[in-house]
């Protein structure tokens, strides 16, 4: 309304001014200034809107302002000193354009300061770098972006409970255990990694369940209980499951390279060596599998072997180790247990018992302090056993699968020599320290071996372990038995073997000795009840050996990642009988789908073993039926092929017979269709045969 009035007012004035101008123009210089009562009816926006847009705003540059709280409150006389200190700290990040110290009327500072940087990036960097900067004991800086204050103001006073997520049915993720014939599944990666397949190991031929092109970008992995199938992509990790292998969850983690599941499949750990993006740096993330939420992240520069984070068997705790430090965290809070880490000078490695919340670690020698292996109970942190060891170069901890024993393989030296920064050991010998976990006070036995050790493996069920030792060409495999209250006894020594890897059957008793990644690929199947070598086989250039989870089959793989020709896999029975060979160009990997532990009690399992004869008869008849059906199918298929081909051949023959006159014409009427046809042209020829050579020595 106001504008309209102005406009009305303006019209008569305009007329007046025109008249004024025309009168004045004749005698003096025109007056360009507005008359006193002139009202401008064109707004600035209309005239120079484009320039006005770039006009400085009051809020300009707010993004580059930070608020630092927690600076000392001092009186005016020490103000300059404070300003120097503060600006020195904050100018490290970038150039400070402006700073403002609010003061009380008396001139002392109020304990906070506003700092303006040249740009917003510097301000953001200052927040990440200098938040929680400790100036001295009393003063810790709290650094925030000025713009964040608005965000903090907007937090509602009343807490609103989050809306419950609608329940999505994941389907039966354990369907594969309901397979009526108890066939196992396995995944294969072929075609240089571009094709991933899931197979059912059915008899007599495996059947393909799923095949996908480019399912993964690097590798695939089964979760430890077999529930999920994991594929790795540039942008993160995806979990697949259920009968149709649909995607169940995904975890976004750029550049992920390693993954690890917690033993009970509650959490998954992803690790990406490179960190990109903004915010708090993190390269290792722990996710909740069922909700897909990020539970905790770390930024690790660990020298440890993967996995950096190791889980207790029940997912209740996880631990990681830094230099001279062991940190144990609890779930589901993901906080440090008792809010502090253990100080363990010289800790080198640690591992969890597979059945109890017991953690074993070892510390290296330091001057006069011997190396030490210690077992502690979590969460009480009570030390339940420790053992001092001397002349230790390295230690390896091997838990037996059922947690009854822990074997620490100790590499010991008789001489040590320090070459500049390198430590050289010589006169190596090896000790196996066996901790009897089930006995009171955990007695420790030790076995000493003077020869070099190539491999060690516990029998997964039972109390035997096997080692490969010795030097070429006399490589031996020794089996030891562990008993309550006795030192481990040598059960058998197999001499002059050709192997470098040990693979126990998951159910114990049987073991495969394999010579992998060498030119021979020898496989020996040994029954450790009587240490009889059942069969010796070979799979040339085999690179991996995989037992199926039930211990019925062994698969040897020649992977494209290791060899270029004859890639593929062979399936053997546990006795070493070849069942099937499968060759495929650029075959990469085969992984069995794991099974969760049996739900049957030990007593029930024994019962089954006792009545095995009764059951096996059933299964054998089933197998026979299946293979006879298959051979019948094969015969039928062949018959059909043969009939088809024969009818085709008949047609060809008819045509060929029709053409006979023309053929005769081409060859001067000599019939050459059969060798015997052309009898007129036969010449007899005498050929000498060298039948026997006799040498008679004449005296």
């Amino acid at each position, binding site marked *: 309304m106001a504008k309209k009035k102005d406009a009305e007012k303006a019209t008569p004035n305009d007329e007046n001014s025109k008249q004024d101008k025309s009168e004045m123009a004749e005698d003096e210089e025109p007056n360009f200034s507005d008359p006193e009562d002139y009202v401008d009816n064109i707004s600035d926006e209309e005239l120079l809107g484009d320039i006005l847009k770039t006009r400085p705003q009051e809020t300009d540059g707010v993004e580059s302002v930070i608020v630092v709280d927690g600076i000392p409150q001092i009186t005016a006389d020490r103000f300059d000193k404070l300003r120097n200190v503060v600006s020195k700290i904050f100018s490290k990040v970038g150039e400070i354009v402006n700073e403002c110290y609010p003061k009380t009327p008396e001139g002392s500072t109020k304990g906070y300061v506003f700092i303006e940087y040249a740009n917003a990036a510097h301000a953001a960097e200052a927040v990440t770098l200098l938040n929680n900067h400790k100036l001295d004991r009393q003063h810790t800086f709290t650094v925030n972006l000025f713009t964040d204050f608005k965000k903090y103001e907007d937090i509602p006073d009343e807490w609103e409970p989050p809306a419950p997520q609608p329940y999505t049915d994941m389907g039966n993720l354990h369907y594969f255990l309901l397979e009526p014939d108890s066939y196992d599944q396995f995944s294969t990666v072929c075609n240089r990694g571009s094709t991933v397949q899931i197979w059912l190991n059915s008899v007599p031929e495996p059947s393909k369940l799923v095949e996908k092109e480019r399912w993964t970008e690097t590798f695939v992995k089964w979760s430890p209980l077999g529930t999920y199938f994991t594929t790795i992509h540039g942008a993160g990790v995806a979990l697949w499951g259920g009968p149709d292998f649909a995607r169940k969850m995904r975890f976004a983690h750029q550049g992920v390279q390693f993954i690890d599941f917690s033993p009970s499949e509650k959490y998954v750990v992803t690790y990406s060596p490179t960190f990109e993006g903004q915010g708090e740096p993190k390269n290792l993330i722990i996710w909740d599998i069922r909700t897909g939420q990020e539970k905790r992240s770390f930024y690790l520069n660990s020298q440890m072997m993967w996995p950096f984070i190791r889980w207790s068997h029940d997912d209740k705790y996880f631990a990681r180790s830094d230099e001279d430090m062991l940190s144990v965290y609890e779930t589901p809070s993901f906080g440090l247990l008792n809010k502090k880490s253990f100080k363990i000078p010289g800790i080198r490695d640690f591992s969890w018992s597979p059945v109890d919340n017991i953690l074993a670690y070892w510390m290296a020698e330091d001057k006069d302090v011997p190396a030490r292996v210690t077992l502690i109970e979590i969460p009480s942190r009570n030390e339940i056993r420790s053992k001092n060891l001397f002349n230790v170069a390295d230690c390896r901890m091997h838990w037996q699968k059922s947690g009854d024993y822990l074997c620490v393989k100790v590499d010991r030296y008789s001489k040590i020599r320090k070459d500049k920064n390198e430590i050289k050991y010589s006169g190596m010998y090896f000790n196996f320290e066996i901790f009897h976990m089930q006995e009171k006070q955990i007695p420790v036995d030790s076995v000493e071996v003077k020869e070099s050790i190539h491999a060690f493996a516990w029998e997964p069920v039972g109390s035997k372990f096997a080692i490969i030792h010795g030097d070429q060409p006399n490589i031996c495999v020794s089996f030891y038995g562990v008993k309550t209250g006795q030192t481990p006894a040598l059960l058998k020594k197999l001499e002059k073997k050709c192997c470098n890897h040990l693979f126990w059957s998951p159910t114990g008793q049987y073991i495969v000795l394999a010579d992998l990644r060498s030119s021979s690929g020898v496989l020996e199947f040994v029954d450790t009840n009587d240490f009889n070598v059942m069969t010796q086989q070979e799979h040339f250039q085999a690179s991996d050996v995989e037992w199926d989870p039930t211990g019925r089959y062994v698969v040897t793989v020649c992977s494209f990642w290791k060899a270029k020709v*004859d890639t593929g896999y062979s399936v053997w029975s546990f006795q070493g009988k070849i069942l099937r060979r499968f060759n495929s160009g650029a075959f990469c990997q085969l992984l069995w789908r794991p099974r969760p532990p049996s739900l049957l009690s030990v007593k029930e399992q024994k019962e089954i073993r006792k009545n095995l004869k009764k059951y096996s008869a059933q299964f054998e008849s089933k197998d026979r039926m299946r293979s006879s059906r298959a051979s019948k199918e094969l*015969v039928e298929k062949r*018959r059909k092929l043969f009939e088809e081909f024969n009818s085709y051949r008949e047609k*060809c*023959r008819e045509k*060929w017979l029709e053409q006979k006159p023309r*053929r005769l014409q081409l060859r001067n009427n000599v019939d050459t269709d059969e*060798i015997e046809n052309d009898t007129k042209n036969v010449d007899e020829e005498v050929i*000498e045969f060298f039948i026997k050579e006799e040498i008679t020595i004449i005296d």
Partner: protein
Amino acid sequence: MKPLMLQGHERAITQIKYNRDGDLLFSSAKDNAPNVWFSLNGERLGSYLGHQGVVWCLDVNWETTRFLTGAGDNSMRLWDVSNGKEIGKVTTGSSVRTCAFSYSANTAVMSTDKQMKFNCEIYIIDVRNADASLEHQDPIMRIPVDGPKVTSILWGPLDETVISGHENGKITMWDLKMGKEVHSVMDHSGSINDLQFSKDGTQFISASKDCTAKLFDTDTLELLKTYKTERPVNSAALSPIMDHVVLGGGQEAMEVTTTSTRVGKFDARFFHLVFEEEFGRVKGHFGPINSLAFHPDGKSYASGGEDGFTRVHTFDPSYYEYQFDF
């Protein structure tokens, strides 16, 4: 039975062929002297001396009077079988890779390599009254081949067509009346190393670097059967009496030195013609097999290898007894 070992070449065998009667076996190698042997006892009958380079290919006419060779010395030569004398030769701009007599043996075909500025070409030559003047005569026909070069060749059944196998796996049929391509198929993904007819010529088998051998219909070039192995196939032959196929090949000569003989898989492998299933292997060569041929009576076969040997195997009685269930 113990195989006959024909030792007479200093270098890798390139091709072997029986004559129509099966009493003679011809062999050529990367040395420059093709040989002829008695197939029955493995005795060498003679050599054909004159070439100055690798002899890539050979053929013998149906009457066993004339012998044809093509070599890396840029020539194709025609020989008298009985006395080893050179009847005539044709010089070309580049290596002669393939050669073959027609059914009537009135004409012959040869193909040259794509080398330097020379293109791959198929020549059709009149050899009825060949003599020393052959060199100065013009061929009946010259067909320039654009694209991948010819690596193996066959005459069609009634001298009307030529079937060529190419470096990229293509198989082409040429009509000689028009001098034009009539039909071609692309069922292989690697170089066609060998083409051989069935006994009646109604089908032929191809051996390819793509690790397979395939059976085709001669008239339509329709793919009938595929035989798969893990190694490049250099040669494949069809038994004249049984429904059997023999394949030979192995790891390429370049890679052989890095592995043991066991890995190279230099076995001759027997497949059933119809079921495409492998049923037997014959070991022996310690280099890839380059050429295979069945004796015309089907009771023996010969293989020539990169190792320079030609082995003649006579089948045991159990070979004829073996039957597939169907």
